[in-house]
């Protein structure tokens, strides 16, 4: 293998390899760890009128106003209950900061390219348009989401206009 080839493989692994995993009902999902800004608890959300139910409102994140989406309501899975253990993943995509409520955050896993399989046509709560593939870790399945595509999509109603994807 040439030097350049070796380098490129290494970069690929470094780029695509780490995922933050979280659960929605029974399913485990993974998003690119580089998109995640922080993880925090769910509290003091200010409701915004005339928005879909899955947009819970906005919070004050150190002086920045950030919208909060409940993925459980958006994808109609699990019980949308809020208590002290409810977790919000703050992600940073397309120059926007958005919070996502999930059932729980599990782990950070590294996946090699061989561990990622193409996404099936059906079988998850999410539309396959937003999936990048399925990962396998110790016989557990991980659904990998293209979080930028999801958050900027029209159906999330988070953006004024759909940016060019």
């Amino acid at each position, binding site marked *: 293998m040439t030097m350049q080839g070796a380098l490129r493989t290494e970069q690929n692994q470094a780029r695509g390899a780490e995922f933050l995993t979280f659960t929605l009902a029974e399913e485990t999902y993974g998003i690119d760890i580089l998109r995640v800004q922080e993880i925090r608890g769910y509290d003091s959300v*200010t*409701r*915004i*009128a*005339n928005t879909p139910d899955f947009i819970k409102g*906005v919070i*004050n994140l150190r002086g920045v106003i950030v919208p909060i989406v409940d993925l459980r309501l958006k994808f109609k899975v699990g019980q949308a209950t809020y208590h002290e253990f409810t977790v919000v993943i703050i992600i940073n995509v397309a120059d926007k*900061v958005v919070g996502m409520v999930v059932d729980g955050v599990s782990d950070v896993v590294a996946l090699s390219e061989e561990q990622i399989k193409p996404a099936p046509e059906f079988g998850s709560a999410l539309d396959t348009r937003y999936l990048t593939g399925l990962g396998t870790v110790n016989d557990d399945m991980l659904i990998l989401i293209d979080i930028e595509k999801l958050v900027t999509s029209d159906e999330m*109603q988070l*953006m004024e206009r759909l940016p060019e994807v």
Partner: protein
Amino acid sequence: MSNGKPGSDIDVKRFNQVFFEECAEHLAEMERILISLSDREPDQEQMNAIFRAAHSIKGGAGIFGFDDMTVVTHVMESLLDRLRKHEIGFTASMVDVLLEAGDVISMQLAGHREGSAVRQEAIDAVRGKLQRLVDNGPVSQPAAAAALPEPVPACEPVLSLCDDGALRRYELSFTPDDNIFRRGIRVESIIAELSELAEPGGFSSRAELVAVPRLEELDPESCLTRWHFNLTTQASSDQVMEVFMFVADEEQLSLRELPRETPAAAALPALPAAGPAPSAEPEPRLEGRRAYDRDETAPGAFGRRQGEMESSIRVNVTKVDQLINQVGELLITQAMLAQVAAELDPVRYETLHKGLAQLARNSRDLQGSVMSIRLVPISIVFSRFPRMVRELAARLGKSVDLKMVGETTELDKGLIEKVADPLSHLVRNALDHGLETSEARLASGKEATGTIQLKASQVAGRIAIEVSDDGAGLNRDKILAKASEAGVPYSESMSDEEVWQLIFAPGFSTADQVTDLSGRGVGMDVVLKNVQAMGGRVQIASQAGKGTCVTISLPLTLAILNGLSVAVGGEKFIIPLSAIIESLQPKSDQLKSVNGKQVVAVRGEYLPILRLHNLFNIETEVSDPRQGILVLVDLGGEKTALLVDALLDEQQVVVKSIETNYRRVEGSAGATILGDGRVALILDVAELFEMAKKAQPDPGPAKEAA
């Protein structure tokens, strides 16, 4: 190495930006002086100041490669130079041509800066005019020139020196500082300029090294050279020094005039011997600084350095905004701490309470200081009006005196930019519609010259800007007639104040004829909209035969807003204080029903009730106005009552954008963060009204409990 290229591109852009800003400043300065002349002959200082401005623009344009800009400035400079030396006499028409030239340069500047269109014919036209003045300008009468008082005797010998046309020899040595190349100054162009000054064959230069560093320490971008020039020229030492004007002061520059060929002259300290001249020591050595810099430090000097006396720095606005944001955060944190501490025992935690009180004071002071950074004097806007009024008055054939009061009143920079257009419109209106012609004024027993006054002042936390004229005043009958023509609803019984409000209706104009200045009916409604968008109000006062006064009242700043926090269900909202008229708890007999909609009667007016909990789908116990509070708000003449559960607090809030991370929220003008860290929406009252119109009919109090 490949990184070097983009880096240097950015540097050039940055330098260009500096040039653009400086050029704009020079233009503004030149215009200011020209306008202040008002057809008087400029004195020597003013003349020099104008000349310097033109010369700086030309020099800068040359250095930065905007050669097209040097074309006009060059002719302009020739004209000013001849004027300055009294070779030609000053005429009033020159002011107009010079102003026009200034406009053309501005146009060229805008062309480079923003890529806007540049009209070549305008450039050629103004160049022709200037050239004609240079060539055929009235010859200055020597007697008049001699009789002129000389306010700066120090520069006189320099000027008289060059009048005799004799050749002079100078020895110059120039030791630039190390950074001269990094600052983008090209020594070869300085040398070229010097050699142009010289008589044919009268120029020689010699370079020597100041230091020879070791090869490994050699920085190719450092300048380690010193130059010596010998120059034979007709130019004065002043003119020679001007070549170096773009070289900063720290450069070592020395100029020595060599003794003249005639031994007698060389020995003479005074020259010309017979003249009334002050001891004409022709500035034999000018060490380090340029000749005219010293002139400017003379008391009362009128020059471009005037403003720099109070030292200032240029800071990017985003940095200031960031600072304001951070102070906003601090205030929120402080409010939060105060809230927590309020629950603690004041005796046990006395020091804590004291400390927090101190913190509150300090952070409020800090906020005041930080906000003041964004405040700029309104003279920035006012300064454009003398010229505008002068030109408009000339076109309309009216005689006008413009007075400006309170120019130092400070206003947020963002507001300054936005208030300029509405103000221009009002001034234009006052001139075109307000003031009568001189004949009409004399006929009605007024002075022939009308007065327009611009007045800015700070009143109760707001800025009031008045545009008043002593013209004919608004004509009630004419406005009512126009209103019926334009289909604007009105009634004969309206009070004068209400009639004046009619002119804010879209498409309304009372001018008898449409001029190219105003009267097209796109006017006051736009003024009103623009001012309202800034959170401001417009008021009109007018008296027939005495004049009209339009007052724009604006908040001090856009970043902080005085608001009333109200509770609706579990939510809190902020209503801008500027929109609120009053709050009340209605009694049963005040509530009426019109078409199934509830209205409230307040002093003879029936106001619709907007239920905030309905608009924002909030569950609340309070659906009966008698249990809650009605907040009466004014939407530019239209009033309505907002039903809320309770009034909480009047407070200053820091306005935050929701759109940064989310989309626009209907009915809100932004959001803020309360003392408890929660987000509260700031209501946009006008938009609430729109929302209510779109929403389904009011279900009435009966069905609402659900």
